[in-house]
């Protein structure tokens, strides 16, 4: 007997076994089937969700609910792109501003050192020495 023949005979036995299920199991299965069919009805009766922007894009007229309009697709893409662009611009702006701040601070400090306006305690400060060395790349 080959594999297929064996499988066929087992299948016969399994079908016979499935036909002999006890009543309580059959009742539960019927109950489950009814619940599923009720759920199908609920799914069919549920109102379709339509994004508000879609009405705005198409002037609130009669809409084809199956196909999203080009305007709505563009609005969705823009909705993703705008925050990303804004975030990138924001980061670049903050970086530039910090760079300008740092340059202005260093210029003030250099000027103070050159004009001997720096308090004498400054030269004793370890942090100041480290900063000068870092600037000179030592």
């Amino acid at each position: 007997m080959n594999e297929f023949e064996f499988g066929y005979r087992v299948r016969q036995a399994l079908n016979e076994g499935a036909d002999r299920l006890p009543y309580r199991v059959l009742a539960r299965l019927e109950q489950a089937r009814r619940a599923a069919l009720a759920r199908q009805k609920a799914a069919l009766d549920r109102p379709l969700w339509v994004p508000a922007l879609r009405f705005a894009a198409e002037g609130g007229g009669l809409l084809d609910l199956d196909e999203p309009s080009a305007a709505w697709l563009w609005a969705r893409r823009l909705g993703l792109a705008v925050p990303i662009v804004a975030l990138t611009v924001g980061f670049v702006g903050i970086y530039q501003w910090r760079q300008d701040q740092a340059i202005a601070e260093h210029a003030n400090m250099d000027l103070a050192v050159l004009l001997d306006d720096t308090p004498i305690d400054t030269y004793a400060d370890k942090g100041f020495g480290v900063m000068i060395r870092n600037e000179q790349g030592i």
Partner: protein
Amino acid sequence: MATREELADFLASAERRAYKQALFAVRDENNALDVVQDAMLKLAEHYSDRPAQELPLLFTRILQNSIHDFFRRQKVRSTWVTLLSAFSGNPDSDEDPLETLEAAEGTEAAESAADQAERAQIIAMIEQEIAKLPPRQRQAFLLRYWEDMDVAETAATMGCSEGSVKTHCSRATHALAQALLARGITL
């Protein structure tokens, strides 16, 4: 799109086989019924807009996923029980549900087999031996020979290659034939 009547007819035709498959896997009547109900609800709720001819394959996949979900939930529950029992000093609850398959009690059919005729006894023994097969082998065997799927459909449902399906089916067939022969049953 499947009509209400088509869905009802399909569920009525598939429910017994679905229950048996779930029972082979989870080894408990109530859990098997829960799994089948879960699969039916998912099919009706999410796939009722599909054509009627797609329902059998969809339902089979949903059922297999529901069985996997059941074992996943069992494993999570078992993990929590293990964690909590560590505080109470009870060491024997850290078992994997998959490992308990062999040790579990017999099916509903097996319980009633003693009181039935010889044919019913043979069927019960066949079902017992199918239940003893390793899960993947049993799944492949049932999908191929009971659900009448071809190799490609079985592979897609099981998420493995077609070669694996053939291997699982071949091993399941040989193991089943030997087990039945050992119990004096020839098909």
